[in-house]
């Protein structure tokens, strides 16, 4: 399995409401409503931590879900957001990222 690194796009706005996360792209004004699990992945998308580690440490450690199933779902979620330019996906750590969620990694 090749590793994936994910980073939040600088062209988005995000805010947490209750247990959900609202994310909006400034490119096409698409609004996304992330579930609690998706929000955890979003908040962990610092460009430095491998997706597999995010799933293991942030998802499986908190939510009752099997690791393989969680990773498959996370990959699908990441690909979907990447198609809309909300997340940036790379095979290696992304330079210039690393801020915590809500601090607009590259803003």
């Amino acid at each position, binding site marked *: 399995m090749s590793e994936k690194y994910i980073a939040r796009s600088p062209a988005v706005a995000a805010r947490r409401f209750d247990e959900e996360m*609202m994310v*909006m792209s*400034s490119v096409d004004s698409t609004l996304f409503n992330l579930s609690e699990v998706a929000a955890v992945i979003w908040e962990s998308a610092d460009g430095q931590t491998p997706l597999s580690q995010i799933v293991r440490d942030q998802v499986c450690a908190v939510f009752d879900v099997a690791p393989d199933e969680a990773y498959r779902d996370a990959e699908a979620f990441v690909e979907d957001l990447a198609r809309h330019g909300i997340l940036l996906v790379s095979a290696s750590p992304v330079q210039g990222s690393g801020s915590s969620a809500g601090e607009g990694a590259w803003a």
Partner: protein
Amino acid sequence: MGLMTELNAKALRLGIPLSVHLDLTYRCNERCEHCYLEHDDRGEMSLGEIRALLRDLADAGVFFLTLSGGEPLMRRDCFEIIESARALGFNVKLKTNAVMVREKEARRLRALGVEQVQISLYSHRPEVHDGITKLPGSLKRTLAGIRLLRSAGLKVTLANVLMPSNFKDSAGVRALAAEVGAHYTLDPTITPMMDGNTSVLRFRVPPKELRKVFEDPNLVGNVEEFCAPPPPVDDGAREGFPCSAGHTACYISPYGDLYPCVQFPLPCGNVRRQKFIDIWKDSQQLAEVRSIRGKDLPTCSSCAHLGTCTRCPGLAYMEGSMRGPSSADCEKSFVRTGITTAGMLARQAAGNPPPGLIQIESAQSPF
């Protein structure tokens, strides 16, 4: 239900101020003849104060942030403010006249992830646009700014405030918007000045001309539907509230005064003296605004237009009561449908007194 509707409903249910309009300054490089502001600096919030406010707004759940003025780019720290706002995850919309936008500014706004830029454009003809802004060459500079913003990849909305002097130019502005790939909006609303001066109301489009706007399919879509008599008033209208002002949105002046809306100058508190969230949750004034329902309006509750009228509680407030009719909106409903409003009948019964505009005051005197 669309996601945005769902988001609004959720914010309303949870009492979250989803949208805030923050004026960074009242200073401006233009002197538009219809403007409701006076442009002296009476003690604007500092960069540090604004950054602290932005953190409070983010903590309170504010998502949509409109930065405006005056001309916001008159502040030398405008980009630092925008950068701070974006770093806190706000969806930022900037309202500017674009006169000070050069390539560097356009690229910076794009790099910061500003959602959209709204620019007032009054005419495609320099003599008309510049005549309104009182700044020679302003149309040329604004258009140059618009093109640079579009080239940088930003979404631009051209806001066309309609007055007697530029009424015939809306098609020209629309064509300009199409040419540069900008969104076009038209607004016939002229607001009294912040000091209560009503002289600018002479710039309101007269009813006969307003009717032409309402009969233009390019502006209203289906004219027959838009101008149709109002449907019977239902429980939704009777139990509903007029707009998001004070419910999921509010306005903050450059001096920290908080109001329900930029067009609703009811002082609710000052963020220099109180935490934003404390004003939002505990202000008696906001509680009063939130308590208003269609069925509670002394005059408008019996009006056939209750369910379709755009009654602005802020304009009504400026005429004397936030629960009263707004004469400008009565006029729009009447011109649109030809059906007299309850507010018009009440005014006729009272001998047609002029609207009694109140003096608008700041929540505090900063100096």
